[in-house]
């Protein structure tokens, strides 16, 4: 078995499963499990291959760039693939009982369409992480966007539909911006392969505008402040497992692409000014998102705004990537943060889903007694909060530490200050929720039971988020494979 097999499995597995899940609507969950199996094996094997033999590339259809499309699995790609697999598997486990909450036509309908859409989303993410081709990325982005929008709309309520429509408009126009950028790149470099573009790129108006267009589109998709407006309604109104996927993975897909663009395809444009611009936007996102999270009255909205803030940390990294070690510390920090936060966010949304199920609402002020009824979910929420705030030994701490020390080493004090203030604000909004949750319930509050697997899935992910800090060295070793530094 060669890496080509694993890459093929990563893409064809969920894609074919999605098609089958649509053809046989009653077998949706089975298909998801089968895809999870295939992807699980492929990802594990690919990680081993990357750790053992370095970057592995594959030329699809045997042609190779510039004519064909190349796939490439380096440390960054396999890390995100593994993260996606982990979260998708958790969501699969969670969604099965979640979708069968009631035996109504609505529930049946939702279950029919959830699985194929989930599998499409998974395909799109895997394709996005593997491909090296800018145009292919466009197709993958569209696949991702459509699946995400359809999943949001699956909730079927008015707010969810409106949010989905807004999301779709943003996503489509952002894709077109991106595509126009690709056209300009092709016009200048006569190729759309990341590595070849890097070789042929010369600073000039065409590439500057191209990069600006692509970045603009991707920033909108990644919901970086100030283009984040679509995110909170979409994430807060979607069904819980969907919110988890969107928040943990979908926005990160666009961020991943930005990394590839700025650090691999067109590193010539990563000037201090551009870096500072990203850093400022990131800092603004952290503060704006956190402050908004603090004032929300609904738990899911709070988590969604916290996602806006967390994305800010990732962009802060752009301004810290100038260090003596080639920015490796900041790079690792941001990606560790990404991984830990993805798990934490998933755990939080799943726990919020449990609360919603049990109490029938997610108003923060009326959460009293939840810790008694759903101790495991409350615990998951708390643990995920620990990672979000960045307390040790969580992955959030490790990432924050790396970013902070990179910032201090480079003398970027304001970055360090924002990171600290951001984590204090995070502590404040987490504490607000936890305090309510631990207040004893008023007598006579009726709650619906929640299947144990839904609670334990949330807890498991929160534990991964916390434990990820201990695997920091290993993850850094993985990230070093094929990264953009000497």
């Amino acid at each position: 078995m060669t890496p080509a097999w694993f890459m093929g499995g990563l893409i064809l597995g969920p894609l074919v499963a999605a098609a089958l899940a649509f053809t046989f609507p009653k077998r949706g969950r089975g298909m998801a499990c089968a895809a999870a199996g295939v992807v699980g094996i492929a990802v594990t094997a690919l990680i081993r291959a990357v750790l053992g033999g370095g970057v592995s590339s594959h030329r699809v259809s045997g042609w190779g760039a510039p004519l064909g499309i190349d796939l490439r699995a380096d440390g960054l790609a396999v890390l995100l693939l593994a993260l996606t697999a982990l979260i998708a598997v958790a969501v699969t486990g969670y969604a099965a009982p979640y979708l069968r909450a009631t035996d109504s036509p609505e529930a049946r309908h939702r279950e029919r369409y959830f699985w194929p859409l989930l599998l499409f989303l998974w395909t799109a993410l895997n394709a996005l992480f593997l491909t090296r081709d800018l145009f292919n990325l466009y197709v993958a982005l569209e696949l991702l966007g459509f699946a995400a929008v359809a999943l949001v709309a699956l909730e079927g309520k008015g707010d969810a539909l409106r949010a989905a429509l807004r999301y779709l408009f943003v996503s489509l126009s952002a894709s077109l911006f991106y595509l126009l950028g690709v056209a300009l790149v092709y016009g200048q470099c006569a190729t759309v392969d990341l590595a070849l573009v890097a070789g042929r790129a010369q600073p000039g108006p065409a590439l500057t505008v191209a990069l600006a267009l692509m970045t603009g589109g991707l920033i909108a998709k990644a919901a970086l402040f100030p283009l984040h407006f679509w995110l909170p309604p979409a994430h807060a109104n979607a069904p819980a497992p969907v919110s988890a996927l969107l928040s943990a993975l979908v926005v990160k897909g666009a961020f991943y692409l930005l990394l590839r663009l700025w650090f691999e395809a067109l590193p010539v444009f990563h000037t201090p000014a551009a870096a500072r611009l990203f850093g400022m936007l990131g800092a603004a996102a952290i503060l704006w998102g956190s402050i908004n999270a603090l004032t929300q009255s609904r738990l899911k909205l709070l988590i969604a705004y916290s996602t806006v803030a967390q994305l800010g940390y990732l962009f802060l990294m752009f301004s810290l990537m100038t260090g003596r070690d080639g920015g490796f510390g900041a790079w690792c920090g941001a990606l560790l943060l990404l991984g830990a936060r993805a798990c934490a966010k998933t755990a939080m949304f799943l726990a919020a889903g449990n609360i919603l199920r049990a109490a029938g609402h997610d108003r923060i002020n009326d959460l009293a007694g939840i810790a008694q009824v759903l101790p495991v979910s409350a615990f998951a929420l708390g643990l995920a909060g620990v990672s979000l705030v960045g307390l040790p030994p969580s992955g959030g701490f490790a990432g924050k530490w790396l970013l902070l020390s990179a910032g201090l080493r480079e003398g970027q004090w304001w970055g360090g200050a924002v990171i600290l203030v951001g984590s204090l604000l995070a502590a404040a909004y987490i504490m607000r929720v936890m305090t309510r949750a631990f207040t004893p319930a008023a007598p006579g509050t009726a709650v619906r039971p929640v299947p144990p697997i839904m609670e334990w899935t949330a807890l498991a992910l929160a534990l991964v988020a916390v434990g990820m800090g201990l695997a920091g060295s290993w993850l850094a070793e993985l990230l070093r494979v094929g990264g953009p530094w000497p």
Partner: protein
Amino acid sequence: MIPQLLDGTLVLVVVVLAWRALNDRDLFRGVIEFIALGLLLAMAWLRLRAPDLALAEAAVGSGLTGALILSALVRMRRREQAAAGQTAGGATGPRGEARGKNHSRMVLGALSLAMLGILAWAALSLPAKSPGLTAEALARLPDSGVTNPVTAVLLNFRAYDTLLEIGVLLLAIVGVWALRRGDWPAADLRERLLLLSLLRWVLPLLAVGAGYLLWIGASAPGGAFQGGALLAGALLLALLSGLGKRLLWRERLIRTGLTLGVLVFGVAGAVALGWTGGLLQYPTGQAGAWILVIEAAALVSIGLTLGLLYLGGRPEEK
């Protein structure tokens, strides 16, 4: 001289029409202008020496998209009228644009103009002559199994793109079905014998035409997408006349048809992986046959998908 003049006029008309289509006070007229725009664009593509695309644009970009928007417009209008009738006040008419909006309009307009300027600047800075990938593509054309370079790119050089694209098509129909129940025709037109007999002739013709486009796509403009669009037209005719009703009631069959493209393409990718060790890498010398099989499956799926997109929703589900 005359071609340049023609081109200039075309560009001018396209731009004006684009503006009119989006900003016409009457939405209905806007949609019609939008369809006309699509047809003009098809002509423009021809002038840009892209006959494959002209075909696709005329059928898909203008025809199908236009039909989709038009039917949506009719549906929305009817609903608005119904609502207006019930509230007896007509409160649902287009909301009056507030005066204050003019301000932001100006700003946004200026922004768009600035963008236009920047884009033009960037476009003018591009090298006047760029070899692109023509040379590479043509050099490899003999190995690709087909002689139409566009088909070669689509189904061999960049077949992976197309695989994902077929995935997008399927996803679109899944998404639409998840959203709403379609306006599946209930009327049976069997009374109208004349129409029926006409259709009996036309439909097979269209199907054969689709097959022909697919076949010819290997060497000349055409291919699965253009053929699929034709098939979609046939399907629509059949559906609207009620002929296709019995066929469509068999839900499993439709679903299989819709997924056929992805399944065959995906399985082909996997088989190729086992055969040659490369994802979607066709065995030497057999590329033509592989492409034909994949395209045939894709044709069915594309046709069905595009046709059913028009209905805008899922059928009755058991």
